[in-house]
């Protein structure tokens, strides 16, 4: 199962490398890859591959992080319809990034702004909803049934709308020349992103740590607070999920802007295909999310080539109908 998804991801990379405004012939692939591996891309094919694979790796890590964060967020709020943005992390990132764009900052400052915004909003949320995340054992006063009361979710949604108000304010006062970049950031765009190390440094440890506690996540997803009765430290796991999904989302949005629907549709589709067991779901969603975004990004830069579309447009265009279809199915089964 995971092998199939791994193959899918590899194929997505191959497609990303070979297609584009200028196609790279399959025959050139071995030689170009060899020169890439040697660290000195020479020739047209190798240079193109270098650019495209760099972008594809960014797309993969972004998609994987979003999908993984989505699975975590859904386990945290115990709602399969939650996504990584539901608690306002992306809205916070948007405020940071757009503020940087508004003042015409350099590209790295925009990424930094997004990261700062995402981390800032997460911290604020943590402070406001601390009791709920604290859950049982953590705080002595655990009469509030955390997770059921929805304080965390509601706080996140309210903070997100406050951030969106700031975003709208910035958009309305921004000069024409900068508006386009700001809108593209909001939609989610991977153009101009190359090889990046940082997101991988967050994604891999997050995945490994999550896999270690996959069984505990299952128990929590099933029993909510009563998971304590099965020996799961619910308070600790909640904080872990909150921290990890926040970091992953922050990394993803600072790489590609707020790309929509990957974090919702991919975990959902994986749950539909492989079941809700987190031991399979976590790696499956990570691989599928990465592969999906690589494909979507490849499509985004080829369908109207040489014009490039923001990848967020495509993920939403694909994501919305898929999601509606699944929602409908769920509804039918529940009746």
């Amino acid at each position: 199962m995971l092998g199939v998804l791994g193959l899918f991801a590899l194929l997505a990379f191959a497609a990303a490398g070979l297609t584009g405004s200028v196609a790279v012939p399959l025959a050139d692939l071995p030689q170009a890859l060899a020169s890439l591996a040697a660290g000195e891309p020479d020739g047209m094919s190798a240079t193109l591959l270098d650019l495209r694979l760099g972008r594809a790796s960014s797309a993969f890590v972004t998609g994987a992080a979003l999908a993984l964060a989505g699975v975590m967020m859904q386990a945290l709020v115990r709602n399969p319809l939650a996504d990584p943005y539901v608690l306002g992390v992306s809205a916070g990132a948007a405020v940071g990034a757009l503020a940087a764009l508004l003042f015409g900052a350099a590209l790295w400052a925009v990424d930094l702004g997004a990261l700062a915004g995402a981390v800032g909003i997460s911290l604020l949320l943590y402070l406001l909803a601390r009791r709920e995340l604290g859950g049982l054992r953590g705080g002595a006063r655990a009469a509030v049934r955390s997770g059921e009361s929805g304080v965390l979710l509601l706080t996140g949604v309210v903070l997100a709308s406050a951030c969106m108000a700031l975003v709208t304010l910035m958009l309305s006062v921004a000069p024409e020349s900068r508006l386009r970049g700001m809108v593209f950031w909001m939609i989610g765009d991977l153009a101009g992103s190359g090889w990046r190390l940082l997101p991988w440094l967050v994604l891999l440890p997050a995945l490994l740590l999550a896999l270690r506690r996959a069984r505990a996540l299952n128990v929590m997803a099933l029993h909510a607070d009563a998971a304590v009765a099965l020996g799961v430290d619910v308070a600790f796991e909640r904080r872990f999920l909150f921290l990890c999904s926040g970091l992953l989302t922050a990394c993803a949005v600072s790489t590609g802007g707020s790309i929509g629907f990957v974090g919702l549709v991919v975990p959902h589709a994986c749950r539909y295909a492989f079941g809700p067991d987190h031991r399979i779901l976590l790696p499956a969603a990570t691989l599928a999310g990465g592969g999906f975004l690589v494909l979507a990004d490849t499509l985004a830069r080829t369908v109207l080539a040489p014009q490039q579309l923001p990848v967020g447009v495509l993920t939403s265009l694909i994501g919305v109908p898929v999601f509606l279809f699944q929602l409908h199915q769920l509804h039918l089964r529940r009746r």
Partner: protein
Amino acid sequence: MISTQDLTLRADGRLLVERLDWRVNAGESWCVIGPNGAGKSTLLRTVAGLRAPDGGSVALAGKPLADWALPALARERAYLAQARGDAFAYRVIETVLMARHPYHADRYWEGSDDHAAAEAALRTLDVLHLAERDVRTLSGGERQRVAIAALLAQDTPLLLLDEPANALDLAHQVAVTELMATLCRAGRAVVSVGHDLNLAWSGATHALLLMGDGRWHAGTTREVMRPDLLSACLGHPIAAIAHGARTVFLPDAPQSGAAVTPIRNTP
């Protein structure tokens, strides 16, 4: 097995249970009886360690609950919550296998011993044929039996059940009551909350009456399940009628100028 000392429980500032000194030994089956809102579930959650006491302490095997590591505690007591909200489409067998969680901290997948325990538990509760079903598609009674099966699979000396007879049909209510009695005879301890006095009388060895205003009565069912105490506790006259060798509890018609007054008065 489990003991409370001066245990005091409150909810929203209202006193539920005051200075409860209570001891449950292996081989005993306790039923907790009381009107709605008297603190039965709160007591069970507190004894399970899901909630901190508002005063006093709870000890399991002589060691305060707070000193237990959670996984070790999960191998000592199992807890059946009153309601289940299933957000995800787990299969029945998966929900029961999860009850084996406290036994293998270092394993990624369950072993064949876990599968054997889960299947035995499902068979005991007469739900093995549902093993592959999505829990969200089960009827209320089926879901309840699956939850009790999970409790059995957890394989603990102490079982805490919040209204185990909920949503069960008559045959399964009796079957579950008998199952708990059998477990007790085998040396386990059971504490269950329930509203059916006849089930409690037939299944339990001891009873704890929560009067709803902080007062409580604990003892064997013969000592505590007396019509006068039960009437005062539940706020309705109750008659105990001998039926052959059995005793049947029935709600009595309220007498005019009632000797029994409802004891639930809010301050």
